[in-house]
């Protein structure tokens, strides 16, 4: 698991956001030289002075170099693998911290929109904070033009991205301008869009955005309880309809735990009856982080005990032509028939395996566990899958 940060020697006048590129790509002119740091590690010998003359913003080298004429010089990284050509990094002269904001080729790249949120979900993995983080919009606007143009998907999460208001519109607009072929996948609780006026913030995303809205029940009070927000269900439903009517694509997200599973099957019928237009339904195992840990007693349900309800609900939707996926549930607790719906989903840097997984034949296709999960969050049903005889 590759860390997101490392330290090194950063010679720079001010903190900077830079696209790291190998020399050939840097010279291709795809990105403005003023935003590019040329990675000279394991490359051919290059005259660093000439790079300065060509207007490049910086260089990354293994160690110190005698002469160069670029504003930013990063070298002697403690963990050189944190930075690779194609990545976008933030470098800070004072502390020498180098942070990776975009990793070329990663299975998920996500913009972190804000730490603020208007809900307080019982299982929130990233508990919100009310800090003023308006700087994040500026950072995203600086970052987006530096992303790979062939990126198929870009995620956005938070917090609640719609709280950025006009800032959200600007960021989506920047994606539309700089990454015309990239799809956006935005996690939102949808409540803001209950007000049709808020749709203007989403407008530049029509045709390129999937809004992933959590819905935790078919009845309002159960959903409101889970998200700890009165009116949360009504607003999410209105938001989903407003988005769909404005031509947006919508994904429904359900997190599986003791408060949601009891109505999972009627929930599937509810989605089919009320929002058969949705693009995708994601049924997701609980992530044992943040508030989920605090509320473990209320939430924990062994996947082994909900697998059959889960599979019924998933197939209820799937059979009716609604694309449905299962996330974060290990294959060994699912009947084999449901494996095609199971996604190997946990981001590269988040997943891990149990000792038992060592001898498992399907490890390569399995989501494994969140690295953050302790023993107490593991199903008693974990057992290696071998040969063709497993099935629930």
């Amino acid at each position, binding site marked *: 698991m590759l860390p997101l940060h490392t330290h090194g020697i950063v010679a720079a006048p001010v903190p900077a956001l830079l696209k790291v590129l190998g020399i050939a790509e840097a010279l291709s002119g795809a990105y403005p030289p003023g935003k590019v740091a040329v990675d000279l590690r394991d490359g051919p010998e290059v005259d660093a002075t000439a790079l300065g003359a060509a207007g490049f913003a910086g260089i990354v080298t293994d160690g110190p170099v005698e002469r160069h004429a670029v504003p930013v010089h990063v070298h002697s990284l403690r963990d050189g693998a944190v930075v690779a050509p194609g990545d976008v990094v933030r470098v800070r002269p004072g502390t020498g911290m180098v942070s990776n904001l975009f990793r070329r080729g990663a299975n998920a790249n996500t913009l972190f929109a804000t730490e603020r949120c208007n809900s307080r979900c019982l299982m929130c993995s990233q508990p919100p904070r009310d800090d003023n983080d308006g700087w994040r919009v500026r950072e995203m606007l600086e970052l987006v033009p530096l992303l790979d143009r062939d990126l198929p998907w870009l995620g956005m999460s938070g917090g609640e991205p719609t709280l950025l208001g006009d800032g959200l519109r600007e960021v989506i607009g920047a994606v539309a301008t700089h990454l015309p072929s990239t799809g956006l996948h935005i996690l939102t609780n949808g409540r803001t869009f209950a007000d049709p006026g808020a749709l203007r913030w989403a407008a530049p995303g029509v045709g390129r955005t999937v809004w992933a809205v959590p819905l935790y029940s078919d009845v309002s009070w*159960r959903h409101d309880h889970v998200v700890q927000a009165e*009116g949360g269900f*009504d607003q999410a439903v209105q938001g989903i309809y407003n988005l769909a009517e404005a031509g947006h694509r919508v994904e429904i997200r359900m997190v599986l735990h003791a408060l949601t599973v009891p109505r999972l099957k009627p929930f599937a019928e509810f989605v*089919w009856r009320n929002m058969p237009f949705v693009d995708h339904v994601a049924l997701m195992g609980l992530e044992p982080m943040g508030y989920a840990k605090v509320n473990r007693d209320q939430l924990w349900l062994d996947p082994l005990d909900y697998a059959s309800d889960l599979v019924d609900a998933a*197939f209820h939707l*799937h059979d009716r032509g609604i694309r449905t996926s299962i996330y974060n549930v290990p294959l060994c607790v699912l009947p084999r028939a449901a494996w095609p719906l199971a996604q190997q989903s946990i981001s590269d840097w988040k997943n891990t395996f149990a000792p038992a997984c060592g001898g498992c034949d399907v490890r390569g296709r399995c989501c494994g566990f969140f690295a953050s999960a302790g023993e107490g969050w593991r199903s008693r049903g974990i057992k290696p899958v071998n040969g063709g005889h497993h099935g629930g």
Partner: protein
Amino acid sequence: MGERIAFKEMAAFRPVTPGYALMPFRFARLPGRQEVLLTNEVGEFAFVADADLRALVAGTLDRGAPAYDELASRHFLAEGNPGAVTRMLAAKYRTRKSALRGGPALHLFVTSLRCDHSCAYCQVSRQSPDKSRYDMSPATARAAVDRMFEVASPALTVEFQGGEPLLAFDRIRQVTDLVLERNQAEKRDVSFVVTSTLHQLDAGMLAFFRQHGFKLSTSLDGPAWLHDANRPTPGRDGHARTLAGIALAREWLGDAQVAALTTLTRRSLDHPEAIVDHYVENSFRSVFLRPLSPYGFAVRAERRIGYGTADFLAFYRRAFAHILRLNREGTRIDEAYAAILLTHILSPFPTGYVDLRSPAGAGLGVLVYNYDGSVYASDEGRMLAEMGDTTFRLGSVHQPWQELAGSDAMATILGAGVAEALPGCADCAFLPYCGADPVHALATQGDPVGHRPTSAHCAKHTGIFQMLFDYLADGDPGTMRTFLSWVTHQDRDSLAGGAC
């Protein structure tokens, strides 16, 4: 980690005083069943105990009762702010009635009344060599195509009917060419259907049909002894020629393009299994079991070939049980009418079927251009006119659609064609899946509104709905899987789950 917060209990998100608003619904008690069927305005349904229904309407249904969540989920009741529930109901209603949006999508062209059959129940056809008298003239055809394109519907189905339309194939060709020519600018989603005995099919016609993606629909009443008794031809080989036509059409156009439907005479009623099996043997995946319609010669021949609704329903139940058995054993075959009704019941979507809608499909979902230049609201309306009652004649193909839509005939349909406003239907639990049929009501009861307790249309539908909901209440997993395969048009075996 974020701020420390005190999480609230679920009760904090419900009104302090228990209470809920009732949303529009209807109910029915099915013969021989304890639980009561509830259906709401948008076609969702629930079976509840009688005591729960009474508590529900009294406003005292306990919020902890399992039925409470079920009824809230399906929008029979709304707790707290009903805003989102109302929005969802509105969206579902709009979806159910969405066929109204573009106006008539089905356009029947009666290109010729001539026919070489003399079916006992046939309403209108003529055995006449006189082309000029019973074929649609080129000028009429041109005007009819103009009318069709005045309608806003983005999808248009052009269906050729007769008589035997293949006896006047040059008319089919002319209309098709006109339609395609106009459509270069109109860019509608146009499809073509011919309803025919298929006896006259030849390679030239088939090449034309293949070129333009035609579907063919034919009549197959069952095995030869039944079919030929119902549909006499001079050569007494009608059945053999129909099967030969089906084989030829499948060869040229593919199996999926060829459909068949039955007409049931009194003779048919003793042989439900034989009729269904005949369809299976001939590789059909669908059989449409249609009772006789009360028009034309059928009325005159009533005494010889007719029967009552109870007899039909007994036949239908037997045939249906047989079909379910076949499906369970791995044969894919549906009953087309039940598949339509089940789609109304088990999905949020309407079907393209025009004969069972509210508002009625006549004039709103379908228009008929008769060979003589008359425009009718439906095929049944045209048959009624052949019997001398022109109530459902909108006018002539040479009048603009605006004028036809404003005709007395349309006023009659709109006045009597909204089931939600008809005595009997207005309170019927099957209403969301059923439809108004003012043409049938006028033909059989002398009045377009009709009288439900004595209506054959209502008796037939009540019987079929009771049967279907009985199966749904039983919930046998095999049957539910079969139903779902019909509604979703998938192979039964490719369904992973299968419960409804």
